[in-house]
């Protein structure tokens, strides 16, 4: 299986759509734990990316360029906590994709591992802090291990996303240690972390792209 630049661009289109649909839900989670803007922020960021997809990136074939423009565009549109986090992810990932117009299975695996490392470096959060990292860290670990084992990106990705989902769900039972909700203490129990949720949407959407691709 491989992914063309066009399909890669299309992935970002789909993220835009998913975020738009889940915007209210993400805000609702953030109202309980933080300042209530996570859905709005994600939407502003992805709408801005979407505009780039329709203009500057329309005929772009360098997947590295696409990834870094997506990251910078997202960052400049939103700032916020997630701006630097996701932007760093896409920019670190861009290094893996540099000059590539077609992504192989291992490019894909490497991209996502780099992405997650970028997020972790930027935010310095640990698993268990009730953040994006609770979704992304188990996801990347599983992806790396399973892909090394099987070289089957579809299967590995799907297992990784499941691990990410479990990570996301685990945030319900966590006390926030970082970010706006870290002052909530016990009151943060029971609510799923908005960032962990949006991170899950981002990887889940990629899985769907792979699935569609695999049956072509």
């Amino acid at each position, binding site marked *: 299986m491989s992914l063309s630049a066009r399909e890669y661009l299309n992935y970002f289109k789909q993220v835009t759509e998913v975020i738009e649909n889940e915007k209210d839900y993400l805000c609702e989670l953030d*109202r309980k*734990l*933080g300042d*209530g*803007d996570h859905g*709005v922020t994600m*939407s502003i960021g992805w709408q801005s990316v979407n505009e780039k997809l329709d203009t500057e990136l329309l005929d772009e074939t360098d997947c590295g360029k696409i990834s870094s423009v997506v990251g910078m565009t997202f960052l400049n549109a939103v*700032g916020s906590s997630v701006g630097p986090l996701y932007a760093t992810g896409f920019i670190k990932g861009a290094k893996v994709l540099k000059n590539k117009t077609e992504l192989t299975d291992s490019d894909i695996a490497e991209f996502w591992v780099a992405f997650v490392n970028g997020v972790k470096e930027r935010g310095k959060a640990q698993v268990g802090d009730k953040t994006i990292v609770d979704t992304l860290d188990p996801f990347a670990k599983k992806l790396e291990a399973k892909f090394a084992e099987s070289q089957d990106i579809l299967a590995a990705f799907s297992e990784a996303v499941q691990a990410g989902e479990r990570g996301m769900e685990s945030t319900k039972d966590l006390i926030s240690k970082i970010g706006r909700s870290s*002052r909530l203490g016990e*009151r943060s129990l029971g609510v799923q972390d908005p960032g962990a949720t949006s991170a899950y949407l981002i990887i889940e959407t990629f899985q769907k792209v792979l699935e569609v691709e695999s049956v072509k």
Partner: protein
Amino acid sequence: MKKLINNPNNVVEEMIDGYVKAHPTYIKRLEENDRSLVTARKTTDNKVGILIGGGSGHEPGFLGYVGDGMADGVAVGNIFASPPPAPILEVTKAIDKGAGVVYLYGNYAGDVMNFGMAADLADMEDIHVEMVLTTDDVASAPIEEKEKRRGIAGEFFVFKTAGAAADQGYNLGEVARIARKTNEFTRSMGVGLTPCSLPQTGEPSFEIGDNEMELGLGHHGEPGIKKVPMDKADNIADELLKHIFADMPLNKDDEVAVLVNGLGSTPRLELYIMYRRVEQVLKEKGIHIYRSYVGDYITSLEMGGCSITLTKVDDELKKLIDHPVDCPMFVQK
């Protein structure tokens, strides 16, 4: 939620637009980035640049504090969201006069990351940047984890003294020292009565019963320490002060600057009733009030409630607190 806005997605753009048009002798937008505002006035050569910034919705914080004696420039974020590095960097470049720039901002994950990235970029352009985080909110973490605390209304005093120091010719290290010292001697705590709502969602930022208040509420509507039943102003002031005193013991004859800050929709009438009690308590303890500020200094859109801030002042800080200021939203003679 009724608001005097047009498209909810354009509120920050349109606010800045109105702001620079209302005060053209005070402030201008940089061509390089429309979220970058700098003072329209000539500042003295070799002055250390003061850069402030953060999310929108806290007006007068932060763009209201650009002017003589306070900040030289501001990077403006979306509602309750740190600005990205780009506008911070542009302001940095515009206000650096070779003496370096001090970044003053609240301790929020987003601000830390974005201002940090901007500082790295400024460094690549050989601009000296000092970063000072404000961490005045005693409700936001225990004293052992003071560095985790968020910055709330106490930021005003940090802007005030650092801005004055820069205006009085202090060098980069000294201005940063003043800002850190002010933060070190500043404690705030707030109480939330009614939520605000983001223009894009219209949803209340937190849930609260008709007879409850949120002790230690953050100024983005972040939940505080706990919800407690609504109480009389005097008791609320006592409670907030209790937390502050426990955190920063003050002795007889110590001097403080006081800020009773409204969160947005609380009338001055109520703020002065709160102030009345603060003054009584300080007097009982033999603590002298050097100067007082009562009003909306750092808000959360139309949130209801207030915070109390005390800054312990010595001769150095007193001189800086007294320094005149001329900003669109804050003037001091």
